[in-house]
């Protein structure tokens, strides 16, 4: 085995996993002393060109509270056709289909190179992707025109069988019916009144008395029927929708001098969520909100319509002067949770010169895995290209997006999971491997990630629960299995299973090893996520202080120095860059709000919380490119002083 560097790189390439420590301290106490928790960055859908999915169901452990999936780490008795679960040690017989199994005839999931494997499974009827455009029409004519064009263009990018819907909002919210010939119909809602999902469905005429006899069966067929009026296959309504978009007018309600246009973003989102909730629960769907300004009325209002009242700034927030902030945030959070529970994600495309309320609305994307795009105008290439990239396709000519994913983590006994930080919500699944100590979104072993793309990365935090005086765990290594079930963009249901294992090390005797197994890049990002996660809910100074203390403790632990001699301080190579990352992190827009609007901060944090390691690192410490006539641009890593 080569260096840890290579090991790390290899693991990342194969499994999309980067651990902070690649040797795990064998006891809780030691783990705590390491300051940086045992944790990893996990990219569930890391693009693997060399990973063809297998077309069968995974084999599960029979223990009810385990249900781990057969993986290369399992011990297999080929003769007895029995395998032992490496998480719960339950011995399971192979299913009949595995009758021909032998040492030479192993299924893929038993091969070491398939520590990450993807299954294609049959789960009910395939449901098409759903794209629901929620369009602000309180835009300048030019912006609206550009947006209309972008949207029309996007229709050509969608898969023909995808369902598409359109909601426009301004002072009112209009849900457009797409199935009709002749007269174009839309359902209109007042922009100031929040409605329950049930009310919305009633008002949209989607309530059909469900036949009483079959409560257990998903009434999908029935619900598909009515929903069709608002969500139609692209190939059917292409022309219709293009015309409809073309005829979109700016909000006709007069905007008096000195006022902002009334924009009912909150209700529009609520209706979008409600509509999908009622018609396509637990189906992959994307709500795409295009907004050109802050919500100015109704629940979710961020600022009043008086222009003389500016939108909240960090200053206001700190002075508790932002009237609508808490209410709006709470509102959007509730909304985001509802959407996320149903597997629907929300994108926010906000293009305006002023703030648009991303601070309040960010959770919509953050919790559901949606995108946030912030621009100055819809008529900029920034927006247009970004928007186009949303629909970019992979080498299989499939969208780089997956929907309605659930990520489940299984650990061996010595390890428990504390939480995750990333575009996910908790599914509140308590299991034996759930730690009481929460970090990030915790207290669960399953998370819902409504929308995933190949680069979406979650930070997972673990806790070593092995007691100090207990022996190093059996087998010498701990294992973690990530099970990601999702709807592929081609509507297939897939399950990707990644099983990783690391060796246990006694911190006292093998501290050197442990130190050298430290992945400072991953650790920096993992700590940064923790810091940003805290910053989202706490005051800035506290987070910085916490970060500093963490850094100090780490240096204390691993640094070599003479007391009162700063110059004597040395850090090993594996840690050498870590302080620098922290330095940049401290002054990054993720933790510093100075000179950034709340919206911008939210925007940066949003992106930071989901990017993979490389991107994150760049975000923490911008790259400096050096251009010369004598060669390709040179990247000057980590050396801002050079500039």
């Amino acid at each position: 085995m080569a260096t840890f560097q290579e090991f790390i790189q290899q693991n990342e390439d194969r499994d999309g996993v980067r651990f902070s420590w690649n040797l795990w301290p064998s006891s809780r106490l030691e783990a705590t002393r390491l300051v940086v928790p045992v944790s990893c960055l996990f990219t569930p859908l890391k693009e693997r060109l060399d990973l063809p999915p297998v077309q069968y169901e995974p084999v599960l452990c029979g223990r009810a509270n385990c249900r781990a999936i057969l993986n290369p780490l399992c011990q297999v008795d080929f003769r007895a056709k029995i395998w032992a679960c490496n998480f719960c040690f339950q011995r399971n017989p192979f299913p009949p289909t595995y009758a021909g199994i032998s040492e030479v005839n192993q299924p893929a999931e038993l091969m070491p190179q398939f520590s990450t494997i993807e299954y294609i499974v049959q789960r009910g009827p395939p449901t098409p992707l759903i794209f629901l455009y929620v369009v602000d029409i309180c835009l300048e004519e030019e912006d609206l025109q550009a947006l209309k064009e972008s949207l029309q263009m996007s229709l050509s990018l969608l898969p023909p069988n995808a369902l598409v819907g359109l909601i426009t909002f301004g002072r009112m919210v209009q849900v457009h019916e797409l199935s009709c010939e002749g007269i174009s119909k839309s359902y209109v809602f007042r922009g100031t009144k929040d409605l329950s999902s049930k009310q919305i469905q009633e008002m949209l005429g989607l309530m059909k008395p469900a036949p009483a006899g079959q409560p257990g069966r998903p009434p999908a067929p029935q619900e598909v029927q009515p929903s069709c009026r608002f969500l139609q296959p692209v190939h059917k309504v292409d022309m219709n929708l293009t015309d409809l978009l073309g005829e979109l007018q700016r909000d006709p309600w007069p905007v008096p001098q000195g006022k902002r246009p009334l924009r009912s973003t909150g209700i529009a989102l609520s209706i979008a969520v409600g509509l999908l909730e009622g018609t396509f629960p637990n189906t992959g769907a994307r709500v795409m909100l295009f907004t050109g300004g802050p919500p100015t009325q109704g629940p979710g209002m961020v600022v009043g319509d008086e222009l003389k009242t500016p939108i909240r700034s960090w200053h206001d927030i700190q002075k508790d002067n932002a009237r609508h902030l808490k209410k709006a945030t709470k509102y959007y959070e509730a909304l985001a949770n509802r959407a996320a529970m149903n597997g629907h994600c929300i994108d926010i495309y906000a293009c305006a010169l002023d703030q648009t309320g991303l601070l309040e609305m960010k959770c919509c994307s953050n919790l559901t895995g949606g995108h946030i795009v912030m621009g100055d105008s819809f008529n900029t290439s920034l927006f247009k290209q970004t928007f186009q990239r949303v629909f970019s396709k992979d080498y299989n000519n499939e969208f780089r997006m997956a929907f309605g994913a659930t990520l489940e983590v299984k650990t061996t006994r010595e390890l428990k999971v504390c939480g995750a930080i990333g575009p996910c919500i908790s599914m509140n699944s308590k299991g034996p491997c759930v730690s009481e100590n929460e970090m990030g979104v915790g207290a669960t072993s399953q998370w819902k990630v409504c929308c995933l793309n190949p680069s979406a990365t979650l930070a997972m935090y673990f806790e070593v629960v092995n007691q100090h005086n207990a022996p190093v765990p059996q087998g010498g290594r701990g294992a973690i299995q990530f099970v990601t079930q999702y709807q592929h963009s081609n509507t297939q249901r897939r399950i990707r299973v990644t099983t990783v294992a690391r060796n246990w090390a006694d911190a006292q005797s093998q501290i050197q090893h442990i130190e050298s197994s430290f992945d400072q890049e991953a650790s920096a990002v993992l700590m940064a996520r923790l810091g940003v996660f805290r910053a989202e809910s706490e005051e800035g100074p506290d987070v910085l202080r916490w970060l500093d203390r963490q850094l100090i403790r780490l240096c204390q632990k691993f640094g070599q120095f003479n007391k009162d001699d700063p110059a004597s301080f040395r850090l090993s190579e594996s840690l050498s860059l870590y302080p620098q990352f922290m330095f940049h992190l401290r002054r990054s827009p993720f933790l510093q709000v100075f000179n950034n609007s709340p919206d911008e901060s939210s925007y940066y944090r949003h992106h930071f919380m989901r990017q993979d390691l490389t991107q994150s690192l760049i975000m923490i410490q911008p790259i400096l490119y050096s251009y010369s006539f004598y060669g390709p641009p040179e990247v000057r890593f980590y050396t801002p002083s050079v500039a």
Partner: protein
Amino acid sequence: MGFRDGLTERLVYRESRTSRVDEPIQGCSRMNVNQQAHMASPYRQPHTGYQGYPQTGYGGVNAEVSYSAQYAPYNGPASGYQQGGPTSGYSPNTRFHSKTLIENISDLSSSSLLDLGPVQPPLTSEAPVLAPQAYNQHTQGGLQNGPPAMSSQAQRSPVSQPYVPAHMLPAGPQPAYQQEQSGAPPTSLHQMTNQMAGMQIVSSVPPPAAVPYVPPPSSQVPATSAPPSFSQPPPNVTMSQPPLQGFYSAPLPSQQPFAISAPPSQPPVSGAAPLPSQPLLSSGLALPAQSAVSGPRPLSLSSFPTGPPPRPQAQVMPGPTPATQPTFGGVVSSSSSQPQITGPPLLQPTVPPPIAQLQFPGSPPTSQPQFPGPPPQYSHVSPPTSQPTHLHPCPAPTPSFPPVGSAPPITSGGPPLSHQSLSGPSMSQTSHEHFPGQSTMSRMPPGPPTITHGHPVQPEMQGYQPQQNGAFGQGMPLQPGYSGSYPRQQNFGAPPAAPGPTPAPPAPKRLDPDSIPSPQAPELPPVQRTRHRIDPDAIPSPIQVIEDDKTNKSSEPFTTGVRGQVPPLVTTNFQVRDQGNASPRYIRCTAYNMPCTSDMAKQSQVPLAAVIKPLAMVPPNEALPSPVDHGEGGPIRCNRCKAYMCPYMQFIEGGRRFQCGFCSCVTEVPPHYFQHLDHTGKRIDCYERPELSMGSYEFRATVDYCKNNKLPQPPAYIFLIDVSYSAVKSGLVSIICEELKTLLDYLPRDTNESESSIRVGFVTYNKVLHFYNVKSSLAQPQMMVVSDVADMFVPLLDGFLVNVGESRTVINSLLDQIPEMFADTRETETVFGPVIQAGLEALKAADCAGKVFVFHSSLPIAEAPGKLKNREDKKLIGTDKEKVLFQPQVSFYNTLAKECVAQGCCMDLFLFPNQYVDVATLGVVPSSTGGSLYKYTYFQATTDKVCFLHDLRKAVQKHMGFDAVMRVRTSTGIRAMDFYGSFYMSNTTDVELAGLDCEKTIAVEFRHDDKLSEETGALIQCAVLYTSCSGKRQLRIHNLAVNCCTQLADLYRNCETDTLINFFAKYAFYSVLNNPIKNVRNSLINQCAQILACYRKNCASPSSAGQLILPECMKLLPVYLNCVLKSDVLHPDTAVSLDERAYLRQLVSCMDVAESQVFFYPRLLPLQKLNVESETLPMAVRDSEERLSKGGVYLLENGLQLFLWVGASAQQELLQNIFGTTSFGQIDPNTTTLPVLDNPYSRKLRDMIESIRVQRSRYMKLLVVKQEDKLELIFKHFLVEDKNISGGASYVDFLCHMHKEIRQLLS
């Protein structure tokens, strides 16, 4: 005879009336119908007929019968009437039109006979004889026409009879009659007397000039004598008739005048008529008559010592009256002169006999006949000076007369010469028509002379007679139509044959129209019937009053320059010239002479109210209110009371200041408005400025008069269409959409606009609302569904309200698609509150006023604000909780209405219910916003489409004002206190109308808060500030000055019953919201009784308590009031749905006088008398089954419905002409349109129906009702003079009841 009987009988109202009245009426009718000539013949025949009638014996029989019996008799009589009136009328008409002389003759004879029979039968048998004789003599004297003369006399007498006969005249003639008849009658009389004792209906008018009539007295004398012995009276009555005839005969040429003029003549005539009338009035009447007579005409009295005198007096009165007459003439003419005129008429005639004649010939001709009938009666009644019409006879005659009337006019032409007339009569026999006119006319002239013999007054009498004669004639024998007249004739005939007749009377059912042809039939019935009941012909007849007014007032334009003039009736076609007071088309008052003090007002109990129709349409020959622009400062107003500049402002100090006519405050004249005064103190530019010389004009309002100090936007119309299952299925949706496509091109616009500036918007709804964006730039309309009905809002602004011209194609596309879109709808639930809110919000959003048209089909049970539940609970009907059913179920709509008014959102609601929809609640908004409510129960596309579309077109096209505020200012001393109509009031003075269309009427009641001065009168200024169709802010001002009086008599002389009834109805219908219906009814009755009792006590000449004396102007108050009481709203009937009642209640609340008049007293036109050549409609007949002839076809309209009643034995030719089939059985009762047949009659009839529809604000669906068919029950409901199935009192019963009430009050 008849008279006395009548008198005595009158006591026994019904008995006497029915029987006797019938007689007189018949007599009258005959008179009218059969014009002189006919008359003559008829008379004679009649005599026989009468005899037959005499069966009038009826009278006797009837007399015996109790009320119920009387009723029954009525029916009999009714039939009799029909015969008399209609039949005769028919026959005449038909004859006239197409029939040969022979036919006519036969008809005449038959009819006359019939009529006579019926009419006189009772009384007549004896009296008739006498009368006839008299007539014969006179007439004969004049000409051999004897018969004609007779007829003429008879006619007149009938006329007189009606009036006097019943009361006064009868007495004179009656005596004889009574005596004669006494035998039988007496008994009846007694009975009658018992019952009716006092019933005289006296119209105040009659000036007592009667004196001259002494002659009559003689006749009267007998009567008088008779009166004492009522029993005898009957005979006397019959006798009296003869006498009358005698009189007539004597005067005939002139005599008629005589008869008419001279009460005596009347007596005779009246004798005939009277008899009937008397019967009605019976002893009571007779007595009263006498008494009345005595009162009025001392001379006559003296002369008339006997009972009869009364009438004679009445007639006589004319003599004295002459002097008075003039005044009367004036007054009378203005008011319902004819009725009153009876007294006055006489006078007038007398004085200007020739003139009168002339007039008659002219326009009146047709009317004359009718008039004649009534007048006579009136005259009779009128005798008492103060109390114009004592007698009811008149009314009765009128009905019958109408038909005749038409004929008479024609004759009138001929009539001029008495001789001619006489000859005519003989001739006339052939044609009844001639008779009346001729007889009257001719007689008139001669009459005077002859009269002179008898009475100096006679001339006047004659004069009257003409009118009266008309009446009489009509009433009398001439016009068959006037069964009454016939009867009289019969009576006459009877008298002669007295003995015989009486026997004849036995034949009870003289009146069958069918039977009419055969003299015999008629003969028998009359008599018997007459006895029992009060003769319906003897009680005041609306038809008569209407016809009289037409005759007297339609020729001359009504100029408004004189303060306190009573305008012509609403039923009269007249032209108005604005000379300083508002046209009666804009304002009508209950009283044009207001009491000076509140004590007087309280005493009289006459409500002082104005019924205002601020934006009324005026006929093309009248000018619209002239525009006035006072510049940027706005209209010039009094500083204190803010009254607008008007003709009552007095300029002083050389024109530098003006003194307000309302509050007397002095205000500076702004420099730009200054003008010098001339020597009379008027401004020099007085006639150049409408506001100084006109009663109505229109100011341009400045921005100060606008909401928010901002000039208004042009209004908008929003159409909200129910597209739930039932509406779609019934075809309603497609009908509406189809119609709107064209209708939108006819939105109202100001006169100088080339295109309407009104914008339109569309909404459909069921449980949710669908708004449509029809912006012109769209290729396709866009539909926007609002399902959040709990919190309604308008989803779009731009594109919802559009200019029709610009968005034409998009709108058409929308209207094409709406029916398709909802063709498969399954939605059955609807909302309603949110629908109104939607309209309101849309207008709010557009910041304009406007009107929303809602087409709704079912009870709104869907979950939404304003959701209703079915609360139809028939068990509540008749209980104290009944009022709850008229109140809105929830207060939601009241609140909503308030908001609508604030925004100027007016709502027209079209309902298409298949079951209970709670009109009381749904109608709250329309009725508070100045909108209209339309209801089409069980809407079916095939049958109701035309009706609905017509209403819709009218609703959309009619001229309107928006966001209006009305303020009524008055002189110090009175104040506008209560308002009734479709509007909302947030304070006590401002009437807020979200919309005000040209048909909406507001009733305002004034109360005293101080004294008024006789000198200055009372001024009323009604100012309406509104936004026109083009968005201009305007102020329409109507000014009206009325007189003030310190004498109650003046008040009673200047009232308008139609307006009074309009007000009472509105008041009562409003009251049912908060009071048990029983209480409302009682208070109505009580108030009317008090009004009449006050009159009786303070204005009428002393007379027996048994006499019912009605002020001339309020002669019809009882009958109309009864109609109001019997209306579905006030008369609980489980067969009528709650919705219907609530609907009618709201409908009436904003009706104008013309509509309410016909609504409460439907117009019943005998189609068999339709003259294909003539422009005029056949004269209406009274709303009683008795007036329907089995052989006829009638058209009944009340402004809402139109019935075509086909008699079971209708003439085949008639059926062929109308339906294209000769078989009664083949007529499809479900048809709602008449087949288009290529014959003049069919064309004429269809034209006529169209013209009637045009007159009404709502389209009337035609229902064909076949006699004996199921539908007939519904039809009968509108025969308001009859007792109805659910227990509504008949006219006669109610009159009795009223009389009782009055007597109680007096004692």
